[in-house]
């Protein structure tokens, strides 16, 4: 098709604000910042523990600062959002067949949630 003058539309940097689904997607991608934040916090925590009782106490003390509490709350929200959207998408990647019928997606998601609850419960139990 030589000599054809096609028109190419440009994509602005705010393309993801135009559609709810794209906005949700970008939000999910952004929650990875929350994941990174918690990971760094955990690293710092383990470093503090290795440095002895005193530095551990100081670290825990610093976590009670209102700003850090707010940041942690935001991160918790982000991580919950990330996990939930991820679990809801999981049935897409996992197709399990029982005989001729596919296991419905919500059951697979439910399985993931159950796994999540069980593991969390084990952690809580071992801490108590």
């Amino acid at each position, binding site marked *: *098709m030589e000599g054809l003058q096609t*028109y190419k539309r440009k*994509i602005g940097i705010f393309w993801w604000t135009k559609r709810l689904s*794209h906005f949700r*997607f970008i939000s999910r991608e952004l929650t990875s910042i929350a994941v990174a934040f918690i990971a760094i916090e955990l690293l710092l925590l383990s470093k503090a523990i290795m440095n002895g009782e005193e530095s551990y106490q100081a670290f825990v003390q610093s976590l009670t600062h209102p700003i850090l509490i707010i940041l942690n709350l935001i991160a918790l929200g982000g991580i919950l959002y990330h996990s939930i959207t991820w679990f809801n998408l999981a049935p*897409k*990647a*996992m197709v399990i067949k029982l005989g*001729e019928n596919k296991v419905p997606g919500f059951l697979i998601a439910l399985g993931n949630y159950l796994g999540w609850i069980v593991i969390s419960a084990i952690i809580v139990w071992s801490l108590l």
Partner: protein
Amino acid sequence: MKDLITLNVFRYQPEKSKEPTYQEYEIPYHKDWVILDALNYIKDQIDGSLTYRWSCRMGVCGSCGMMVNGKPVLTCATFLESYTPGPIRIEPLENFPVIRDLVIDMSDFLEKLKKVKPWIIRKDVGSEDREYLQTPSQLADYKQYSMCINCMLCYAACPVYGLEPEFIGPAALALAQRYNMDSRDEGKNQRMKALSHDTGIWQCTFVGDCSAVCPKNVDPAGAIQRYKVEGASNWWKTLLLPYASKD
């Protein structure tokens, strides 16, 4: 309900202007008209120069995809009624170059289609007098991925394709899966080679919109994710057991 409805239509006429414009058409409203009927009314009665593709008017040829109020749909399967009282904005499918008005250039897709080798690959062709056996359950494994009508709605919905036009894209990847999962096919490894490099499956960031807009429930997002799981496990297999995997 009022009797007229306004369509706001994207016009691009390269011989007249380098930039597109929007043109308003007021047309009679009929409850049983789809968007495509409205366009045909304009073309027949108001403006013979309005340009768009269509053919079957029954949602199976895949010609008539357009953006209607910003969402990719088949215009022969979308009623005016869902958009009352209007106005309704009609634009060519996003992410594709526009040839004229509502007609996009999809030659890129046809090139990509070839890359996924969408045909049965096997060493032994079998008897010409007998069909290959395939149980209903084996058929069900790939049936969903064989329903694609190449309407390009998923490409119009995919931001990755918009940003990186090299991305092979949802429908072509779903079609690769359709053959991979067909019990008669042995070409999985050949296709994996084409698809596991960076314009293939790994570019998909799982927005999931392709599956949401697909009129035939093909679920390309699911197909790609399953591909990724497989691609990753193959990679581990070759890493751990370098001599075990053969073509």
